[in-house]
């Protein structure tokens, strides 16, 4: 097990390293000079331009630029925003907790709802519930989140007026309002994950139901629910773990869209505005932070996988 964990951690390190390289390369593939974009109309001043280029290390070779950037990044200096001309770190730190709170509740929602729906669909195979849940899962995967958001705003906020249209209230200020404002964004962020989680849970329960030991359990006269919860679920939920890891990526991707639509001052909104201002440093920092979260969770999922399923750690440790 130790060998397996060390191997996985090393791999995660390499991948993280490459993510920073990809994210730094954005500056390179951008047409035009980053210093000119940073200075705006001041770029006409050649002395200032040269000084800024030197400050941003743009006068050095690419690899050196990247190493210097990475060294700063590790120390918490994410560079300066092209548009706001303030450190990117401050901008992100102000918004990090909002996005993470939203992401956390969306993740909880997708795990609970996804697994419950998956179990329901699998136990009612080909019945009405199964079909309804299947339609829901297909829509959840195919519906653009911005469209579902608008539809939900229209139905719940404008038509029935039971939820606020948009905005964000800090939980410390008014917990009730904060929750009311979070319901729609959380649900919409979670929707694609709920859908994939549902499908995976259903598929793996149906897989496990075909196993010999389930037939044995059934033939010795165990009750249906005992078989389901004691024998089937334990094994069926292992592949669901992988989906959980992938869900984190889609959740954070979804935050970009959802925060923009619901006007939530989180990282996602910061990024959308950065896109419109071509503010690359903010996007770079966002990519690295989000990928760090995703790589760490994939690592945890893999290690958890190894712990719950001995076959995997043996197979992977030997490779």
């Amino acid at each position, binding site marked *: 097990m130790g060998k397996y964990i060390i191997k996985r951690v090393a791999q995660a390190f390499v991948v993280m390293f490459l993510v920073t390289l990809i994210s730094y390369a954005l500056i390179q*593939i951008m047409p035009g000079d980053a210093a000119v974009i940073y200075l705006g109309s001041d770029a006409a001043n050649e002395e200032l331009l040269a000084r800024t280029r030197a400050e941003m290390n743009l006068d050095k070779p690419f690899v050196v630029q990247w190493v210097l950037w990475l060294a700063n990044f590790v120390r918490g200096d994410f560079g300066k925003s092209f548009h706001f001309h303030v450190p990117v770190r401050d901008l992100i730190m102000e918004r990090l907790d909002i996005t993470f709170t939203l992401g956390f509740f969306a993740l909880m929602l997708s795990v609970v709802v996804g697994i419950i729906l998956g179990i329901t669909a699998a136990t009612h195979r080909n019945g009405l519930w199964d079909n309804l849940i299947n339609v829901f899962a297909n829509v959840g995967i*195919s*519906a653009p989140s*911005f469209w579902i958001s*608008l539809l939900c705003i229209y139905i719940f906020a404008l038509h029935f007026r039971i939820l606020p249209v948009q905005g964000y209230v800090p939980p410390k200020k008014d917990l009730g309002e904060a929750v009311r404002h979070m319901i729609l964004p959380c649900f919409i962020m979670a929707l694609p994950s709920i859908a994939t989680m549902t499908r995976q849970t259903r598929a793996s329960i149906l897989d496990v139901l075909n196993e010999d030991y389930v037939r044995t359990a059934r033939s010795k006269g165990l009750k249906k629910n005992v078989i389901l919860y004691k024998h089937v679920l334990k094994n069926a939920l292992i592949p669901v773990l992988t989906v959980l890891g992938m869900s984190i990526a889609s959740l954070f*991707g979804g935050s970009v869209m959802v925060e923009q639509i619901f006007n939530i001052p989180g990282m996602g909104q910061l990024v959308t505005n950065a*896109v419109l201002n071509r503010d690359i440093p903010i996007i770079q920092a966002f990519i690295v932070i989000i990928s760090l979260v995703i*790589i760490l969770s994939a690592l945890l999922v893999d290690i958890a996988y190894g712990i719950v399923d001995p076959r995997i750690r043996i197979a992977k440790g030997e490779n």
Partner: protein
Amino acid sequence: MKDRLFWSAFFAKKAVIICFAVLCLFVLAAVFAPVLAPYSPTAISLAEKEMAPSLKHLFGTDSLGRDVLSRMLYGARISLSISLVSVLIGGFSGMILGTLAGYFGGVVDLVISRCADALISIPPIVLTIAIGTALGQSMLNIMIAVGISSIPGNIRMMRGKVLSVKERDFVTAARVIGEENRWIMLRHLIPNCISPLIISVAMSLGGAIMAEAALSFLGIGIQPPNPAWGTMVSDGMRFLETKPYLALIPGFAIMVVVLSFNIVGDALRDALDPRIRGNS
């Protein structure tokens, strides 16, 4: 005989027939947009702005008096072309890189596979946005940005397939008679490994349409006045309370097309699956 089996497996479900019909309509709309559209998609007529759906304007008009139906038809054109080209970019690059990684192994494999891992750990929408922003907004750049996010999955798939095929006797034979690596890859490996890749490329069309719509919705995709479904949704958002159909109709169209692509893609995979297993 085999073909008939394929078609009956493909159309086994009613949903697939409906979705296939939707896709046919979508492609027809895109191809024949100039013939079908009753008005120009960019003609502004402030006297006729924000009209409700009527016989004259089936889907109404937007805030600049442009005919929504005409814009939707031309928007279908843009969606289709961007998604087609981008999945081809993603499929082709994935094919080449995956084959190289699988065939040469060693350092080449290590570098390509780890880069694919790195690309996978960035959420696709974020990657698309980042590349789109860095490259700037043009049709080709959007295609590239959308295409890149499908490369890592294709690399993994192609690499896995090449790894299994390269051990087969005909590849060894080719190597023994001294064929060049380039030829072995092009003539023996790629043709024998490509079917799952083609399926996965077809299955990613829906995702590409969604990605393009998301980019346009955020304002970094297709630039106005060109009609794109995503842009139409974001334009219509401001009138959600008074004229909900302006945002909801194009959004619904995106959903239906993406859903149809996903369902037809799944059906295609399921129908082809036994044949692939039978052949190999």
